[in-house]
Each structure stands twice: as structure tokens, then as C-alpha cells.
């Protein structure tokens, strides 16, 4: 599979439209998207094979004239371009009384660059028949493993993304793919019912499909243990975070707080802490589409800025934020390749991509051995940011009790971590030498604007309030 032939065919029309709009605006760009998403699913009683809701095909025009920004999203740019340019200008016109209340933007860098990017994709090697058979087989394997499994589900969520970005001086296109393969069970133990899941992911179908079957025994064992999980006694504990929870902390505790559109709005306390200690001196944190390989690894962002690896925290000191074109223009900084849209229908914001702590030097077993009584926390459920006030809430799927330096068989679920971000980050006392970025998640900004993200890192030893 390769870059969208439809988008390829639209280059001329897009350039014509840019030429027309450039008569009225100093900066004009068009992002065109063609996303083909698919879902395959089998469970005990039903199955399905359809296009995914993330499928889209459309255009977003971005305009600037030194003051505020204008955007117009449409699924059709056919027809006379002068007429369309006029329609766009009319559609984004503002009430006269607001004209004087617009921001002032700095000049937008539009350095000449023409480049194509493509990542290998093997989705064409798999027929619908093979994919549904795979899901049915995983489902049957799971159901055969334990009579307490009341339902087993296998799902494949895969997509290809073609994006074309054209401005006066730039012409970029990219094609890449991703698949998340998920196995899930509903497990009943007496009156108690639990759900558990495992997943594999890759840009290649072959890799994701090869990995998932290896996780089924682990999944069933986990479901069994979760069915015996007890509520945690609320309190402050020494904890070890697995890479998923480490990533959740990186993402919620600090990632949202360094999205620089929040700096512009004075919504992030981090703005005042650039160059200052915000975490333990052994902490290093990154974000960037080019910083790791995952579902959030693109070649250029939705503003046409090339992907980067941004170091956010260096030796405990906050050194950089991440930005989209608009916020960078307002701040007078260079954009970092983090301008992302939920779809062509939505605004671009400063968004995280792959967010993680760097590995340390400690051995996981030494970290566990260092805890008299505490918990090891596993698997992200959800989290909520509060970049202005640095409160944090992160929910782990489960924890396992540590007693006298050893992991027990005592599971607790769910586990909600909360507290003050600097307290949490400065409590990091050990960092493992293992490292993993979990490449299959999604994230909203506030309660909307969902984009694909990954996060992760090593295991951390922290002290945190659990409930």
C-alpha cells in the first residue's frame, strides 16, 4: 500500500486554491488527509468487519495575515478556485466588533521543503477472510483456556494515513500505517466479574498478529488474579510503576503542562519553571514523533513541521516545551512538530506524541527489594491533567502488594493515584534500566480532541497517595 492516489491527484487544485487565497492572506497552507481505518472483531456471539470511524478524506485550509488565524475544513475543493476562495473568506469572516480584538502573530516561517515520506505497510498481504479467521481463532483459544471466561473478544484496529501538506514554499507528503491488535476476556469468579486485556501493535500486520497469540496465557492468568483482587486501603505508599504507569505519569503529570498553547493562555505552571528543577535530578523526559516508534510516530505534523525529538526534562530541570505552529507564532519560538488535529475537521493544538522518561541504571529486582510495604502498579486505565495547578489523577488497572521487598500474590484494583505533581516527580528515587514505550493509546485535551499517543519509560520508584 502506498500514498493516496486521490490526494496525489489533488496537488494541482490545492496549489490553485493557495494561489487564490494568497491574494488576501500572507500565509496559506492546505493539509489534505486520506485515512483508511478498518475494524475486525470476533467475540463469543457476534463478529464484525467494517471501516473504522477514524476513516476520513478532506482538506483543512489555514490562513494568517499577521493577526488571528483562520481555518476552513471541507471535504470538497472541486470547482472554480476563485469562487471557493471567496466562500472560505466569507465563512471565516468575524463580527466587525471583534476585528480589533485579535491576537498579533509573529511571522510564520515557511522554509522551502519538498519531500515524500513512506513507511512499509503489509496490510495488503492479508485478506478479510484471513483476518476474521485470526480473530475467531484467538477468541476460541481464549474460551477454551478457562471455563470462567464468559466472553472472549479479539479485535484488530488498523489504519493507513496519507497526508499531503502544501504551502507557498512547502510540499510534503507522508504515508504510514499502524495496527492495534487486542485480546480481551470477561471473567466471572462466583459473583465477581472482571475484564482484562492484552494487546500487540506495530506498523506491520505480520508483527502484531504474530505477537498477540503469545499473550493469551498471560491474559487469562491476569483475569483470574484480578477476580480475586481486593480494594486497596487508602494511604501514601512506596510504589514501583510499570512502564505503562510511568508513561501515564509522564503524560498526565508533565506532558500536558508543557504543551505550549497552554503557555500562551497562561494555563501551565510549567511556563514559570523553564530552567528550574521540577523533578528528581535523575529524571530525563522526552516527547516527539521522532523520539520513539509508535502509533504517534509521523514524519511531519498537521502544520507541516517535521517530526522532532524534544527533551523536556534534563537531569530534573525543565528545559523545553512542545508546540504547534500557532502557539509558536504567538510565543516567537520555533514549532516543535507537535501540531496535531483529531481530524481534518478540527483545530490543530500543541499535542504530545511519544512521551517517556529515559531509562536509568537500577535493577527492577533491587527496586522491589528496597520496599518494606508498598505496591507495584500496572497498566493505565485513565488519567486527568491539571497543568495550571499541578494536581494529578492517574488510575492503574491494578496493583500487586510488595511486602518485605518481595512481590506477593495480593492484587488490588482499581488503584487511583493522586497528589501534587512536583511532590510525585521529586519523590522518584530509583529508575530501572528497562525501558518500553507502549504504542497504542489515545489522549484528549480537556475532554475532547482525541489523538493517538504513546507513552512509557522505565520502572520508577515513587511515593504517592493511593485510593
Amino acid at each position, binding site marked *: 500500500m502506498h500514498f493516496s492516489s486521490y490526494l496525489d491527484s489533488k496537488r494541482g487544485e490545492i496549489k490553485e486554491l493557495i494561489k487564490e487565497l494568497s491574494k488576501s492572506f500572507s500565509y496559506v497552507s492546505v493539509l489534505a488527509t486520506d485515512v483508511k481505518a478498518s475494524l475486525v472483531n470476533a467475540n463469543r456471539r457476534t463478529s464484525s468487519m467494517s471501516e473504522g470511524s477514524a476513516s476520513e478524506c478532506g482538506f483543512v485550509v489555514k490562513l494568517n495575515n499577521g493577526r488571528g488565524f483562520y481555518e476552513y475544513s*471541507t471535504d470538497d475543493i*472541486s470547482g472554480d478556485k476563485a469562487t471557493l476562495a471567496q466562500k472560505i473568506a466569507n465563512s471565516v469572516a468575524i463580527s466587525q466588533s471583534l476585528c480589533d480584538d485579535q491576537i498579533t502573530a509573529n511571522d510564520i516561517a515557511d522554509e522551502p521543503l519538498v519531500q515524500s515520506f513512506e513507511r512499509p505497510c503489509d496490510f495488503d498481504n492479508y485478506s478479510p477472510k484471513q483476518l476474521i479467521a485470526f480473530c475467531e481463532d484467538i477468541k476460541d483459544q481464549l474460551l477454551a483456556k478457562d471455563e470462567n471466561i464468559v466472553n472472549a473478544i479479539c479485535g484488530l484496529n488498523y489504519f493507513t494515513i496519507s497526508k499531503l501538506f502544501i504551502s507557498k514554499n512547502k510540499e510534503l507528503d507522508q504515508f504510514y500505517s499502524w495496527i492495534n491488535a487486542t485480546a480481551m476476556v470477561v471473567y466471572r469468579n462466583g459473583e465477581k466479574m472482571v475484564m482484562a486485556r492484552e494487546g500487540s501493535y506495530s506498523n506491520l500486520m505480520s508483527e502484531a498478529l504474530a505477537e498477540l497469540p503469545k499473550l493469551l496465557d498471560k491474559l487469562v492468568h491476569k483475569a483470574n488474579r484480578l477476580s480475586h483482587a481486593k480494594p486497596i486501603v487508602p494511604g501514601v505508599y512506596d510504589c514501583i510503576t510499570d512502564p505503562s504507569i510511568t508513561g501515564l505519569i509522564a503524560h498526565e503529570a508533565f506532558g500536558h503542562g508543557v504543551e505550549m498553547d497552554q503557555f500562551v493562555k497562561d494555563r501551565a505552571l510549567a511556563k514559570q519553571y523553564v530552567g528550574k528543577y521540577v523533578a528528581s535530578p535523575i529524571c530525563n523526559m522526552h516527547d516527539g514523533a521522532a523520539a520513539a516508534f509508535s502509533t504517534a510516530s509521523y514524519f511531519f505534523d498537521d502544520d507541516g513541521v517535521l517530526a522532532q525529538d524534544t527533551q523536556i526534562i534534563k537531569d530534573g530541570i525543565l528545559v523545553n516545551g512542545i508546540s504547534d505552529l500557532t502557539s509558536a507564532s504567538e510565543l516567537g519560538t520555533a514549532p516543535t512538530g507537535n501540531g496535531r488535529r483529531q481530524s481534518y475537521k478540527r483545530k490543530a493544538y500543541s499535542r504530545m506524541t511519544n512521551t517517556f522518561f529515559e531509562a536509568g541504571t537500577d535493577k527492577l529486582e533491587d527496586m522491589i527489594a528496597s520496599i518494606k510495604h508498598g505496591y507495584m502498579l500496572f497498566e493505565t486505565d485513565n488519567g486527568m491533567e491539571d497543568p495550571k495547578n499541578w494536581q494529578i*489523577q492517574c488510575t492503574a488497572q491494578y496493583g500487586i502488594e510488595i511486602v518485605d521487598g518481595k512481590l506477593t500474590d495480593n492484587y488490588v484494583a482499581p488503584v487511583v493515584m493522586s497528589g501534587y505533581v512536583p511532590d510525585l516527580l521529586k519523590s522518584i528515587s530509583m529508575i530501572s534500566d528497562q525501558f518500553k514505550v507502549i504504542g497504542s493509546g489515545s489522549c484528549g485535551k480537556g475532554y475532547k480532541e482525541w489523538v493517538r499517543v504513546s507513552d512509557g519509560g522505565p520502572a520508577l520508584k515513587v511515593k504517592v497517595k493511593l485510593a
Partner: protein
Amino acid sequence: MKHIIEILKEFPEVCNYKISQVQTSSYETFFVHKQLETVRATDTTDTSVTVYVLHDGKMGDSVFSVYASTTESELRAKIALAVEKAQLVNNQPYDLPAGETLCEQIPSNIGEMEPKELAKEIARACFDANDHPNGSLNALEIFVNKVRVHIVNGNGLDKCEQKYNCMVEAIPTWTDGESVELYECYNFSTFSYDDVKAEIAGKMQEVRDRYYATKPQINPNCTVVLNAPEIASLLWEITGELGYVSVYSHSNAYKKGDNLQDGDCDKLTVTMCGKIEGSHRNSLFDGDGVTLQDTVVIQDGVTVNYYGSNRFGQYLGEKVTGMLPCMQVSAGSVTESDLQKEPYFECVSMSGLQVDIYNDYIGGEVRLAYYFDGTKKVALTGISISGKLSEALATLRLTDKIVTSNSYRGPHRALFDKIAVI
């Protein structure tokens, strides 16, 4: 749509079809402090086609999208691929809704104004809500949406509805040396300058209180009060377990006849609805075109009905209610004056109420709470709540005052014992 139907008829394997078209036009303004940063407009049409194929005594379906760019030959290829996929899907057959026609507009005054003028008026109401130099809206996003939904199927169903809605996302902030903020998301389908101003003014008061809120030396041990948004969040979790899909897939934590409240308390009566007063989610029909049928799912604390879509309703032999987007909850016994008779801890702003029905858990981080000790009310922050859901529900008391919060209409406040403040 006619063109798509004509081509669908070329495929004899297709025993039925559904076409769903959503046309959206929006006008959006994004403010940084009081300055306009971005103006957006959208003009898009989303068309999705579902083909149904009967094979081997089973029924399969598959969905695909059609774009403005989709050519006739591409459309034929998409249908052929969808037929191939549907033939691999072995589901129990069911009937699509038949024959009904409808074309209506959900009542709203939003279409009466030019979108850019309405957006300006909404912004004015929001900024006018702050009358103190220490208060501000550091960010404000306004969305004015016009949505037309049109659904047809091969059984002669042809329904459309046009709706308007607005969304305001505001960040009320209080600065006095240091600075704190809260998050506000307010949806409405009928514009009133006074209502918008009052909503934002309420949040401005709360963010001021958050600024002066303190972390308690000793955590209160008293009744915990949740407000309408959190009550809605809790009840959506519970009623989600009563959906036909959950029941059919055996993943429902609750079944008909379960007593959710084994205690001396206000018993919940919850009705899932198509429309409630003042909600932006009001609809006449669901994604299959099924006319929505209000359904009582919890009566006096006992689960009495399931609800859900055409397909899974038929699988379960239950009445087809449609996917009901709203919820109505009966009033309780607690008056505002009753509230002043005992200490309580009111969760005003939370990071997000955490409810885990499988693990019998309710809790979450509280960004702003009011603690009433029986005589005076103080603002608190930096705390969490945690409890067993079943034990908390058995102590539930609901206020007699009814409010609307997005897709929820019901008691303004819910009072729980046996939830700890930690």
C-alpha cells in the same frame, strides 16, 4: 443518496442497506484571554453505508464511508469489498426498522442568528460573567453547530432531523499573585445570554473559592455530596450495564431484578430518554432510524428493564427502545434547608469521578470541595474520596431540586454516607 442506492441494487447479494448522512456546518471561535486567536468554519458531509448479506442462515453486515471524492467505480469497489466482508460475518439474522418517514427540526433558537453574530454574543456573555480584576477566562472556545442527520434503509425508512447546538469550553482563572483555574464545558441547544452568563459566573465563583481553598489538617468524616455532573457520570456507568449489547455479550454486571440499594435510602428511579428539557443531545431517532422509546431501567432502586439498539433488542427478544441518548432521574427527599442541618463534604470540581462497577469502587481526586461543618462552609482542595459503590448506593439521598446537566435531568445533588474523604 439516490445514486448510492441505484448502485447498491446492482449487487444481488445485498439483502438490505442503510445509508446515514450527517451534514455539519460549524462556526468556531477560539480566544486566548480576551483576544481572538483563531476562527474556524467547517462544511462537511459524512456518508456511511451499511450493506447486509444473508448467507448460510446467518446475516453479515459491513460499513463503509462515501466521500465527495468517491467516484462511481470506487463506490462499486467499496460495495464489493463490503459484500465480501459481510459474507464472512456470521451473525444471527434480524430485521431492519421499516417504513417510517420523518423530517423534523429539533426546536432551537440558534438558527435564528447568523453564526458569527451568535458566537460573538456567546463570547460577550462569557466575558461579562467576570466582574473582578482577579478573575479571567484564560481560554475560551465557542462552537456553533448545525447538524442535519438523514437515514434511509432498504425497508423504506426515511428519516431526517436538523438540530443546532453550541458548546462553550472555558477556563475560569483566579490570579492574586499565584493563579488557579477550573475547567468548564457547557452545552446548550437554545441560547440565552443570561443563562450562559450565569453558568460562567458560577464557575468564576468556584475558581475564586479554589484559590482560597486549603488542604484540611484532618479529613472530614461526614456525608459526601456529589453534584449533577458527577451523578450523571455515576448513573451512565450503572445504566451502561443494562444496555442490550452488554447483556447479549454476557458482560453486564447487573441483571433485571437486581436491588442496587439494599438500605434505608432514597431509591433511584431512572428513565432513559430520547429528549429531556434543555439538552443538546435530544434526538428523535437513533443511528438505525429507530424512533426512541423512553424506558424506565431502574425503578425504586431495582433494575427493571434493559434498553438499546434494534439489532440487540431483537436478539434478546426485548422491546426495541433505540439507543437512548438522555437520562431522567426522579427527585429525592432532601430539601435545600435539610442540607443545612448536618455536616457534609460537597465535591464541586473533580478530576473525573472514578467508578469501577466490577470492583465495586467509587472515588476520585477532588479539585474543589465545600466542607460544611454544621455552621459554616469552607473551601478545601488537595483531597480525594474513596468508597465501595454498593455500600454508598445503599445510603443514597437525593435532593428535591431538579436540574439539567448535558444529557442528565434529575436531582441537583446526591448525598452518600460510607464514602471516605482521604
